[in-house]
């Protein structure tokens, strides 16, 4: 889904471009240590577990669990109109890797810490923001 109005967007660099553009192919990706398979996020050029500098970009399933959530009611930026839902999600492959993201297609009363989510992407300019929606299709609403 491509949106017309603007958002504040990340500056793409050689370090983060793979992450913010992975959604073009509909896949969530993280930096992975080539030696110990640790996922490294946010991306930095050395593995925090084994200090290896050998790294690769890895696809993950896009499945995640909601571990913290807030419904924001205050307007902070004119281009993003409240209310909207911000959550912290744990990635299925490595729960200590988390993303702050938007929870979309979910009624506020159905939001629950522990709920299963799956990735979706919102496209703005050259950036694909990973957002998350209920993994259970029965819980999904139409609108974002």
């Amino acid at each position, binding site marked *: 889904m491509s949106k017309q109005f603007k958002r504040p*967007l990340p500056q793409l660099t050689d370090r983060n471009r793979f992450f913010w553009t992975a959604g073009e192919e509909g896949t969530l990706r993280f930096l992975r240590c080539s030696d110990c398979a640790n996922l490294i996020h946010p991306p930095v050029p050395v593995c925090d577990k084994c200090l290896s500098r050998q790294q690769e970009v890895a696809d993950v399933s896009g499945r995640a669990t909601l571990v913290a959530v*807030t*419904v924001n*009611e205050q307007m*902070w930026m004119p281009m993003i109109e409240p209310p*909207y839902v911000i959550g912290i999600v744990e990635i299925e492959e490595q729960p200590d890797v988390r*993303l*702050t993201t*938007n929870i979309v297609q979910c009624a506020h009363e159905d939001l629950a*810490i522990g709920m299963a989510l799956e990735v979706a992407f919102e496209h703005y300019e050259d950036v694909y923001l990973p957002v998350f929606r209920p993994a259970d299709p029965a819980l999904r609403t139409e609108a974002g």
Partner: protein
Amino acid sequence: MEKFEDKSAVTGLGMSDIGRRLMRDPLGLTLDACLDAIEDAGLTRADIDGVSTYPGVVGGAPGISGASAWDVCDALRLDVNWFNSGLEQSGQLGSVVNAMLAVATGLCRHVLCFRTVWEATYTELQRSGQIRYSGGAGRLSGGMEWRIPYGAASASNWIAMYCSHYMHRYGLTKEQLGQIALNGRRNAALTPYAIYKDPMTMDDYLNARVISTPFGLYDCDVPCDASVAFVISHVDAVKDSRRGRGIGFEAVGTANTERVSWDQGDLRYLPGVKGAADMLWSRTDLRHKDIDTAQLYDGFSFNALCWLERLGFCGEGEVGAFLEGGTRIARDGELPLNTNGGQLSAGRMHGYGFLHEACVQLLGEGGERQLPNEPRTAVCSAGGGVPGGVLLVKAL
């Protein structure tokens, strides 16, 4: 154990006018507080040989930094042996710890510390088009790139999420959280400079406009214009100070033992709290029962709650029960908390207000709000961003 904390003391306190949209030059506020502190110590500017502040020159929104160390050195023509500022230290009070280090190592004898915010006026100038913030239009980098694109633009969002996790994990109720705000407002009624003094009921608290669930308006502190300053002197100089007595340092908590991050670390508590709290108790024989008052960072209600728990005033997950009814943290309770109203009601003096109020109480200069228990010890913490930092201070 011989500690560097023993070598220095607060000898002077200063505070500018505090308010919403004072429309004053922030350097003017800063110099008011600094000159106030120097005079309070019984010194002149010629005695000041060091300057330390937080955060100094910043790249982001200028409202959070009203003056730099350079600004003050130049405006007052100070001749200093050492000066320092920065955002990357153990919270706002890290700048006081730096001053203590400079004194303990012999670089300085009297260090002027200050913290100035002018967010209320800055926001008004921006709103009315009188100044235009040059930043903010470009792409995001650093920590912000992971949050701002999602509209997670405010610390209220980031901290609300930790609070949601805590509520889910430990069963904290909104009413228990609200005791932090109600306690602050009760205390603010007795504080001449506090911004919000009108009585607040639990219904007022619970029915306030929602900012970011579970936070309503009264879970969030008050952006304001304020400058607070201290003179940190060598402990040998205390007897020659205006009062002939000062506030000593029993222990510092400056450690950071976790991810500097709003989502990657332990979600049971806010980042920057645990390492600092653990370190504080490792540097003193005093224990919780010895602490007479707590002045704990309350940029949001949940900040103070987190400090209470991680400092060990209750067990893990038990702070809701500790806060139940609000009696333990009240002025006449076992641990009087934020006796000037805290940032939630007195205003966002951004960390420095807590040390100021600790000193006022320990000096017995609280006037109408002076605690009746003749406090001799206080813990005061900083925070807001990551990391935090905490001090244990004592009457000398």
